């Protein structure tokens, strides 16, 4: 009797708390939705063929953002070329070869540390090592390398996860037939893990495309309405261009449509990477159910 009374008293509280929690969780989603909505609605009017394919004119007050788009493409591509093979190889070592020793622990600690290093500190590092010590100058090369090391931990961690999801039996079967370890990995593990590895890597690539602080110190040009001719050139980049238009431009209110347009292009670029990654992951989860 007492028990039922108590549980009756509890019920409205349960419902209230449950709704409060739901409200809090949804308010985060609403905030995200509002930001996306604001950028898309106010930015879409600025998007035109000219805006995407033309060079900026009059200090960025008119014209398009082609050099910034291409700059971001070059920087991101450079970062991928370095970080993807390095990250995947690291993941293969950690998942397939490494023993539980001291050295492995050190590698793992280093990866966690890298993942936590603030992006501006990566910028300082890139400035000290690539720009000055290696004398690359502020260039695509210095910027790409800095971004590559910044996204390395993301690629390693997600690639390792994908490798670990492949069942042991696939390895054991191959090893038992006399295959070497590398034969086993390359023919019986990697084919199943690669989709997952690429998916995780796409997230890192999205991060590289949207990051501003490291390129601020290593590559980005304030206003450079030409395309680069070599990896030792400076370039404009979308995130940096948005920052400049929004805070450094002499007439920030006049170029507000350009700011929204640039923000939208960057958002679409980065979100496209992320959406592809999220969707691919959903598909592979359904496809490979071990």
């Amino acid at each position, binding site marked *: 009797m007492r*028990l039922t009374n108590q*549980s009756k008293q509890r019920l409205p*509280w*349960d419902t209230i*708390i449950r709704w409060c*929690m*739901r409200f*809090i*969780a949804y308010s*985060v*989603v609403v*905030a*995200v939705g509002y*930001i*996306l909505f604001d*950028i898309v609605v106010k930015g879409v009017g600025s998007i035109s063929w000219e805006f995407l394919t033309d060079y900026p004119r009059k200090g960025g007050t008119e014209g398009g953002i082609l050099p910034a788009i291409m700059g971001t493409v070059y920087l991101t591509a450079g970062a991928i070329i370095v970080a993807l*093979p*390095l990250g995947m*190889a*690291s993941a*293969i*070592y950690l998942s397939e070869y490494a023993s539980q020793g001291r050295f492995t622990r050190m*590698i793992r600690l*280093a*990866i966690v*540390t*890298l993942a*936590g*290093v*603030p*992006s*501006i*500190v*990566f*910028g*300082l590092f890139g*400035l*000290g090592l690539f720009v*000055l*010590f290696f004398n690359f100058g502020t260039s695509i090369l210095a910027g790409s390398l800095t971004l590559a090391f910044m996204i390395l931990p993301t690629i390693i961690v997600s690639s390792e996860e994908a490798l670990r999801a492949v069942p042991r039996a696939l390895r054991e079967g191959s090893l038992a037939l006399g295959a*070497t370890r590398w034969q086993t990995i390359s023919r019986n593990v990697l084919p199943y893990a690669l989709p997952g590895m690429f998916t995780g890597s796409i997230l890192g690539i999205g991060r590289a*495309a*949207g*990051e*501003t*602080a490291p390129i*601020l110190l290593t590559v980005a040009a304030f206003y450079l309405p030409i395309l680069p001719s070599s990896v030792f050139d400076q370039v404009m980049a979308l*995130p940096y261009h*948005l*920052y400049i238009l*929004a*805070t450094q431009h002499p007439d920030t209110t006049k170029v507000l449509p350009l*700011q929204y347009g640039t*923000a939208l292009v*960057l*958002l679409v670029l*980065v*979100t496209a*990477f*992320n959406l592809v990654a999220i969707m691919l992951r959903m598909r592979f989860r359904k496809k490979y159910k071990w």
Partner: protein
Amino acid sequence: MRFDSVKRKLLQDKAVRTLLLGAASTSILVVVLIFLFLGKEAASLISEPGLSALWDSRWIPVSFQDQRFGLLPLITGSVVVTLLATLFMIPFGVVSAIYLSEIASKSEREILKPFIELLAGIPSVIIGFFGLVVLGPFIKSLFGLPTGLNALTGALLLALMAIPTVISISEDALRNVPLSYKEASLALGASKIQTIWRVIVPAGLPGIIAAIMLGMGRVIGETMVVLMVTGNAAMVTLNPLDSVRTMTATIAAEMGEVAFGSDHYAALFWVGIVLLLVTFGLNLIAQRVLRKYQMVS
């Protein structure tokens, strides 16, 4: 003859192993190089004007008579913004994580999760831009301030940026709580909400705390948002409606104009070192906690 090919295969196997080990070691190398090159560029300040110059409440890097490289206003700036952001981050991040892992139905999760993941992917410069043109003016009119660019505006946006980190790690921690705890609690007649708040959350608390610490690490290291929306006045203040200048924003704003090798240049690298040590410490403690409670492989 056949034996030779086996030998060759084994040799190839060894070579691949060495190659992969080399790749894996680059992470260690990069960490070492980061410390090394930050130290190298910062070193010139040690002899002249001495490290004690950094312990000063004024940061006046560009001045003809009285240059000051006191890190204190920058450190308090970062601390104020970070603590304020943590204040918003804890309820929203942790409660959302509990809701997602314990209460939300499967279909609800599949709608909510991608939004959170999208949030994690939005570039910080876009969040900063949003703060500059939408949230800042809103805060300005809400409090009747001369400008909406202050610690509060920055903290709100930083909290939003750190929430995906907090949610995903807290969710892992909650999912790692043994099912038997939940079953025992429910079998004793506790309601679902009671079970969540008195059994599951306390059991997952170490992981949740680690999640909050990693979120704080993200906040303190974030550059573009604070550079764009906190107003950037270097003064010692605890008022959230004041303009503040964080360590990250100082580096980003001043490194472009500084003469390489000058005292100011070295001082900016010291700011970087402080930043690196703080985030390194936060990360290390968080990882310890996670490992102790078996949440990391």
